[in-house]
């Protein structure tokens, strides 16, 4: 084998290895999805799972069809993520407009850096912050404090995706607005923002998906509940908290509930992700046509 043949052989060998490692990277995704579906499906196929709330563990004599459900957790996740969105989305969208429309302002670099750092801040630390800020003064756990923690997590994601979406809008639109004599705020809010709406919505959806899956910041803010609670000033259950708490208990029936809750959670989160990525692709395709 001469030198060049060897070089070509070595190159192909490494290329093959890279592809093999790439496939290896996808193995965990397949395994997580597979086991969550297989182990979660038996719980999820019973309608009670979505309408009932927690029941005490039934070991050792469990009924054939488990009567327990996670309705309280689904409702709780919805309420808490909803309140968090109401707080995070307006601030995040305005902040993102600032970063994109005034990117020459020196302050915007600091905001950008702070957002990227906040994305990487451990969620448990944000939970501690919400605890100190909203649980300690009121002396009891509350869903609202959980929402605040989730909003802090969502904010930097919304800011950065809004910035990206607004930056995609061609300058021509901005200039024609200004040329017509519109003030900056009308250009930004009434021309640019509607044009960037699909990207902005994508960012908001992605942050909702992230918040819906967070457990750590809720452990000592929303705390959890055994029954359906809709009062945001009291403790409330959330889907990820259900998975976390049930999975670690020694009761088979509750472990099955945990797998079922994990399946509901994963369908919700991956569904939101896929939809939002589809919206984003359309936005990029549309922006390309402008």
């Amino acid at each position, binding site marked *: 084998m001469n030198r060049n043949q060897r070089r070509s052989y070595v190159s192909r060998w490494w290329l093959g290895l890279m592809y093999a490692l790439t496939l290896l990277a996808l193995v965990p995704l397949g395994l997580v999805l597979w086991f969550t579906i297989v182990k979660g499906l038996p719980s999820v196929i019973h309608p009670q799972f979505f309408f009932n709330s927690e029941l005490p563990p039934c070991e050792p004599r469990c009924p054939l069809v488990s009567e327990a459900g996670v309705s309280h957790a689904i409702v709780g996740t919805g309420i808490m993520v909803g309140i968090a969105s109401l707080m995070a989305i307006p601030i995040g969208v*305005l*902040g993102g407009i600032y970063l994109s429309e005034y990117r020459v302002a020196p302050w915007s670099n600091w905001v950008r850096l702070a957002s990227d750092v906040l994305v990487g801040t451990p*969620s448990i630390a944000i939970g*501690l912050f919400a605890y100190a800020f909203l649980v300690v003064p009121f002396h009891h756990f509350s869903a609202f404090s959980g929402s605040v923690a989730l909003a802090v997590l969502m904010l930097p994601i919304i800011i950065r995706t809004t910035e990206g979406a607004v930056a995609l809008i061609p300058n021509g639109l901005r200039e024609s607005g200004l040329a017509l004599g519109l003030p900056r705020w009308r250009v930004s809010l009434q021309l640019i923002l509607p044009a960037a709406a699909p990207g902005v919505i994508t960012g908001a959806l992605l942050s909702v998906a992230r918040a819906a899956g967070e457990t750590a910041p809720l452990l000592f803010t929303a705390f959890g509940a055994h029954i359906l609670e809709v009062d945001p000033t009291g403790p409330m259950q959330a889907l990820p908290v259900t998975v976390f708490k049930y*999975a670690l208990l020694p009761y088979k029936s509750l472990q099955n509930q945990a797998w079922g809750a994990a399946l509901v959670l994963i369908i919700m989160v991956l569904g939101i992700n896929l939809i939002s990525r589809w919206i984003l692709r359309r936005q990029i395709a549309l922006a390309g046509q402008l």
Partner: protein
Amino acid sequence: MAVRAEAKPVVVTSRPRDGFQWLVGAVATAVPALLVVIVLTLLQQAMPAIQHYGPRFLVNTDWNPVTESFGALPAIFGTVFTAFLALVFAVPVGIAVAVVLAEPSHTTLRGFVGTGIELLAAIPSVVYGIWALYVLAPWSYEHIEVPISDHLGFIGWLGSPAPRGLFSASLVLAVMVLPTLTAISRDVIKAVPRGLKENAVALGATWWETTWRVILPSARAGIFGATILALGRALGETIAVTMVIGNAYVIPHSIFQPAYTLASVIANEFTEATGTLYPAALIELGLVLILVTLVVNVLALLLVRSSTREARLTA
């Protein structure tokens, strides 16, 4: 007379500052303000412990709520060790995926792999946790830990396998940081000027020679930044680690043995912490964690920014 080339380029600013800029600027200031307020709040809440234990807190190995003797060293050790071991597993795979994703060929495969990695990033931590607890950890105990300790157990830190411990936690962490590592490394590799690659190919370099001698060296700083960013994520990851690390407040003698991380201690014990010193000590753990991740993240972001102008950092 020589033309002096020090005239500054004219920066076209759209308009002088207006009320709208002040308004959105003020709203955006919420982010840096939050960061400062979070750190200060934790500092204030941790004060009783900081005052009581002083710097000893960081090197003490006790964790006894009854005698109120608290030290952070085992948790710091567990946090740093699991994060580093996770990177050892994740970095080779992450770079390989990034190289494949940055390659201009095989569009279908790239789309498939790219979406897969994005979904990997979207799976909630607690789902990784339940999967690791019931599937990954038992599997790695049976098929990795026991064989290794059978053959290499005479080396102390490779002996005594356990179903939950540092090793299982590192494995699940490796899966969880992979998307961060991949997304940013890919952007960094893509930002390598095309000309460099074309020159190498024109000189007759093979695919591997181009990748290994030209592309990866020019992307080195950015890939290092991506690794540090992944380190930051691994340090702060809570729930999945809590479920498989085994929750033992010791510095274990073997990498397979149960241990604890800063975030897991807080997750497990905070709601049950009573008195003044116990919660304050837990919050001090949180303060240590957030300060370490802040430093790590800022360092990583500066590294990544230096190599890509527009890296997607929210991935």
